[in-house]
């Protein structure tokens, strides 16, 4: 009568036991590509004109379950934002991340799950890579399982190179009915409508963000010498509508289109910023869980 119904420790993993039980290892693969059309861009005392953007993100994580409450997370992520910019505009042509993923998921209490994840790697424009390009942003989050229908997310993101090194994160996933779900979880808060077992329609917002190092001659090359070797906080906000199609229970593809009202390149140390406004965009993604 039942209804129904989280790295350093790597060397301590009992690999033999894991190998004996294939069920105790799970894998995640997420691949996303998006294109943002020409967006009017200005700032830093420069007329930058129209800029379009292509971005791609591929993240793979393998999670061996060490015991009933603890999963380790190992993986890699590559993310790239490339901008078709006019010469001498203070916008980097490329912002790129190539990092490892280390972390764990842990059940802290009956209703609390915790995730700690650090992504050490290179975050920059990939011109003259050196120690300044190394970063290791850290995310610490907790999910409160209020019920099968309501889960709360609370957390912080720590990145010592960012203008705001510690940022709070909060969200909620609230299943209102069999069809409707308020999935207000960052970075993609959405209202979802499950049309059938395979198709989910959604509308919401998306945030793309990161902190990157620019090259030692970036400023000189772009007519603004004080931007040489600076750190830039990149932020982009999107409004979207799309559809998610579950190909198999573990694999889904998504296609969405929308509007990018605001983008910012914040060179916060010399206190210069470049902003883009109003452009259409489209995105395709694939999410797999094995």
């Amino acid at each position: 009568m039942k209804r129904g119904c989280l790295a350093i420790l790597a060397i301590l993993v009992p690999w033999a036991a894991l190998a004996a039980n294939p069920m105790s290892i799970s894998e995640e693969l997420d691949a996303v590509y998006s294109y943002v059309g020409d967006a009017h861009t200005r700032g830093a005392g420069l007329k930058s004109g129209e800029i379009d953007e292509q971005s791609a993100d591929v993240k793979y994580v393998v999670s061996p379950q060490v015991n009933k409450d603890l999963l380790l997370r190992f993986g890699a992520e590559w993310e790239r934002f490339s901008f078709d910019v006019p010469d001498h505009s203070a916008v980097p042509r490329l912002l790129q991340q190539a990092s490892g993923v280390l972390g764990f998921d842990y059940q802290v209490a009956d209703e609390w799950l915790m995730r700690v994840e650090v992504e050490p790697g290179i975050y920059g424009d990939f011109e003259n890579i050196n120690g300044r390009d190394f970063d290791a942003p850290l995310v610490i989050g907790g999910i409160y399982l209020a019920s099968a229908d309501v889960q709360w997310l609370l957390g912080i993101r720590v990145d010592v190179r960012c203008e705001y090194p510690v940022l709070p994160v909060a969200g909620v996933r609230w299943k209102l009915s069999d069809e409707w779900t308020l999935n207000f979880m960052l970075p993609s808060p959405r209202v979802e409508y499950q049309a059938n077992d395979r198709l989910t329609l959604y509308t919401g917002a998306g945030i793309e963000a990161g902190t990157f190092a620019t090259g030692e001659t970036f400023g000189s090359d772009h007519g603004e010498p004080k931007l040489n070797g600076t750190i830039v906080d990149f932020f982009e906000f999107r409004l979207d509508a799309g559809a998610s199609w579950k190909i198999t229970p573990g694999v889904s593809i998504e296609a969405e289109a929308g509007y990018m009202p605001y983008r910012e390149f914040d060179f916060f140390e010399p206190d210069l910023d470049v902003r883009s406004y109003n452009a259409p965009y489209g995105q395709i993604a694939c999410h797999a869980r094995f």
Partner: protein
Amino acid sequence: MTRRVACLFLALGAGCFLSVAAVPENSDPVEAIKSYSDFAAIDLGRVLNGDVLSERGSLMNFPNGISAQTCYAMALPADEAARHLQLWDPSAYSELKVFAFHALHMPCDPADFQTLDFQTRQKPVHWLLDKTVATTPARSELNLTRDEARQLAGCLSKQADPQRASKCWAKLLLARASAFQQQGLAGTTPYEVAGEIVSPADQLRNMLLEQLPISHEFLPILKGIGLLGKDAMPSLTPFYYWSLFDADYHGTISLGAVYLLPVGNHFQLIDLEYYVNANYYASASMYEVWPVQAQGKSMALVWRGDFFAAPTIRFTKGTERIAYGALMLQDIKKEIHCMQDEAKTKR
């Protein structure tokens, strides 16, 4: 029977001998429960004060299976608590979302299913009606044999008539309940889901065979109901029931049987859902009820193990699976609190 299963049966046999030797009849209930359960420690004081101890089950090799264990007390003598668990009707508690719960006669007859009613404002029941109407002889999202799908499609003729759907389902359920009453688990006909043949009895056996200490402990009743061992036909007479409830916004009908067996100074129970018409395949709730004394009152110390087989479990991995297990425990605790409250009023 594969060699692996044969070995497990042999292990069960040896374990039965060992458990008899290791756990004498009058042993401390707390020590007895610790000997086969996931509870490394049980604070009897907390339990007698109303706390429900809980442990999410560890991962199973069986891909559809998930389990959980709880330990709690009921304010009734052990024999009364055992009977209370056997006959408990959850439909009185709206938070449990059970729309209907009815006992079945032995042998069961059509009148037992007269109150099955799809004519309701409950949205989950509308979901079940929609899936029933969409059933064709060749395709159904419900747990049906080809023959049952043909019968259901022929009976309804694509008409979304709630009364007719109730009657059509009553006929199918009566046939399944009768077969179970006559043949036990051997009478549970496997059905087809997404091209796979699913046997609820095999789903239950596969889960229990991975839980050797628990299966050792419950061997008397498991053999008595024909779930493990050579006897296909149960030697125990259970309490038979059907219920209609909300499983994650989906209306679901189940047929179940609750077996009770006195074992020395304590009691063992198994609540088997031997047929579930949608969303999951089968479940077993196992109870061991021990007499304990608290402040001069006779009380019952209850260990409960829940074993649940569902197709979605196979695809729920990593952290999602931990979350799934935690949410399953929330539901079980909710049900236990209702049982405990009702037991207090009976005292």
